[in-house]
């Protein structure tokens, strides 16, 4: 039976206008979304555009300290969204980096939105690649495309999406451009409609390949569920105390790969 109602519900045009900004009402959420990115790429602006909150945005790095949380509803699913502090890396050299890293790794968000500045893509990708090392589900928000255009820079988002193995959405969050598209992609990744094949680091790291492979083998036996044991091996080699503790306590093993988490 096709009723007019169900027609509406199935129509993409209807769904795309389906965003309900829930502000700070974070009850009964279905999915958790993390918002990561370099400082000053407009994470807070994206956050505000999605939640309808008015978190203060400012054109300076380090504006968001700690993390801000909000919620939105899209296509009958409720999302809790966490705005992480802006960082240049996840190698935990500072408190900010540790907050962001710990949330993505141990908080197990259903989707991580990586906000990058389209006009400074190369530098921003450093963080994006590190995020992809520790999560399987991510969407790249190619923000500030208006500014990139102003500087005569164009980014091939399809090619980028193919290289990274995750959806890439060009946006200009300040002008609300591309937000609907971003929502659609978040939804598809969260519901498992889009299966990410995240890029994993390929370049050989000098002098350590033997050690990494050795540890990797052992970790794979011990934690068969882990998505990226190679990364864990690298963290162990670097002496990352938080990860060492997580391996020791077995916490790392309980981080089930997300594919099996949702039906």
């Amino acid at each position, binding site marked *: 039976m096709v009723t007019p109602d169900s027609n509406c519900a199935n129509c993409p045009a209807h769904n795309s206008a389906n965003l309900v900004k829930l502000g700070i009402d974070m009850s009964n959420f279905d999915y958790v979304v993390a918002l990561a990115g370099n400082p*000053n790429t407009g994470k807070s602006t994206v956050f505000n555009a999605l939640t309808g909150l*008015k978190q*203060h*945005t*400012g*054109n*300076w*790095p*380090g504006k968001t*300290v*700690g993390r801000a949380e909000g919620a939105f509803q899209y296509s009958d699913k409720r999302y809790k969204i966490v705005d992480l502090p802006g960082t240049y*890396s996840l*190698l935990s050299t500072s*408190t*900010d980096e540790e907050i962001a890293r710990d949330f993505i790794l141990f908080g197990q968000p259903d989707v991580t939105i990586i906000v990058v500045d389209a*006009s400074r*893509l*190369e*530098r921003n*990708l*450093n963080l*994006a*690649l*590190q995020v992809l090392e520790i999560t399987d589900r991510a969407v790249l928000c190619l923000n500030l495309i208006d*500014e990139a255009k102003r500087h*005569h*820079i*164009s*980014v*091939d*988002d399809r*090619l*980028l999406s193919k*290289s*990274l193995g995750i959806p890439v959405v060009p946006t200009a969050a*300040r002008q609300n451009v591309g937000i609907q598209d971003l929502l659609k992609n978040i939804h598809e990744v969260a519901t498992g409609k889009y299966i990410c094949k995240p*890029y994993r*680091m390929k*370049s*050989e*790291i*000098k*002098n*350590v390949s033997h*050690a990494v492979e*050795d*540890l990797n083998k*052992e*970790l794979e036996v*011990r934690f068969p569920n882990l998505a990226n044991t190679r990364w864990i*091996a*690298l963290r*162990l*080699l*670097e*002496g990352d105390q938080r990860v*060492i503790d997580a*391996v*020791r306590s*077995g916490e790392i093993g309980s981080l089930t790969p997300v594919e099996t988490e949702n039906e």
Partner: protein
Amino acid sequence: MNNVEEIIQKANKYRWDIGENLHDSILESIYTDAARIADKAVTREGGKQKFDWDRWIDKLVTGRWTGFPIMFLLLVIVFWLTISGANVPSAMIASLLVDTVHPLLKDGANFLHFPWWLSGVLIDGAYLALAWVISVMLPPMAIFFPMFTLLEDFGYLPRVAFNMDNLYRRVGAHGKQALTMSMGFGCNAAGVIAARIIDSPRERIIAIITNNFSLCNGRWPTQILIATIFIGGAVPSFLAGVTSAAAVMIVAVLGVVFSLVVSWALSRSVLKGEASAFSLELPPYRPPRFLQTLYTSLIDRTLMVLWRAVVFAAPAGVAIWLVSNVTIANVSLAEYFIKWTDPYAMIIGLNGVIILAYIIAIPANEIVIPTVLMLTVLTTKVAGFGAGAGVMFEMDSVSDTAALLHTGGWSVLTGINLMLFSLLHNPCSTTIYTIYKETKSMKWTLISTFLPIAMGIVICFLVAQFWRLFA
């Protein structure tokens, strides 16, 4: 056996063999991959080298010789616009809330046969305090905050930090303290929270203690009003606006100087250590979105700050009414206190009225000026001002306020010292609480509270001595 301890042991052993370069090697590999991927996806239209505005503006606002003058100039312009723009709407709101609504409320209370003390506490105390705070705070904030937010939106703040960074590093503090200091110009509690961006605990405590030296919005109205009366009043009228704006700017800059001096003293004594390095990215300039900025700065900053002032003003209004109407042997508590502190206050170029006002206004700096005015009327028993003992009133114009303060024995010295004392005294209750929450230490909270008062007393004392010597 596949034991986790064994894996960790193994990793530790490998780490020993690999040496210290692992971190750099990992970064190198990430950079290589990122560069390769970005290179494929990005096309840059070369050829037409457009004039780079960003670079040009940066050269100017962070230049060795131009950076600071431009900073001061911007500050003066912002203050001047605030001072000259706020008077008219202030007077309008005041005449509505005080001249029209207040008598109506009084009549209503009489009609309902309120006892005199009840209508006193509620209408002459709480209501008038609210009315005053709104009429004095709202217009300057509605002008100052949007302008400040526009500068912030445009990307000017990191440039300020860039200019200041070197100074802060030289005194042994963290360069990011320049950013928390800038935040403090809006609200010290916000500045104290913002100090979280500083990782080293030593430098963070320095940033927290010295944040109070950034004039917060609760103190801008005091600065602006007193500067208009005493500094602006001392020069020809066509120069008054600019001169008082300059005076406010000097006090603000003095605050920055104090924050540098105290940071220096702290990092050489109780908080010894080296300044840590950090990288500050100068973000590209972005055209500010005017309407959105107006909206968010009005909602986020103006109304929130106003709400806080209102919450604190009402009980303070009650307190003021009580201390000036509860009498022992026909003399009010306020008068006892003022008579008792006057001689001591005179030594530091202030008076008992100001001391009492600051004690009543500990919850919120915003209400210092109304308290001062009311107490002055009360103690000098001048006729023709206000509506009687303990009633807070609004001066229709700055000249009325000036006349009252002069009658109350105020001089230019009192004005200057009030401005200095407003810069150098304990943080407001919210900030003190925030400092405690952020540092979790009673010791640092107490130091942050009492250090500025001690400095204020010393500085005011010195200024008073010099003034009396030469003037």
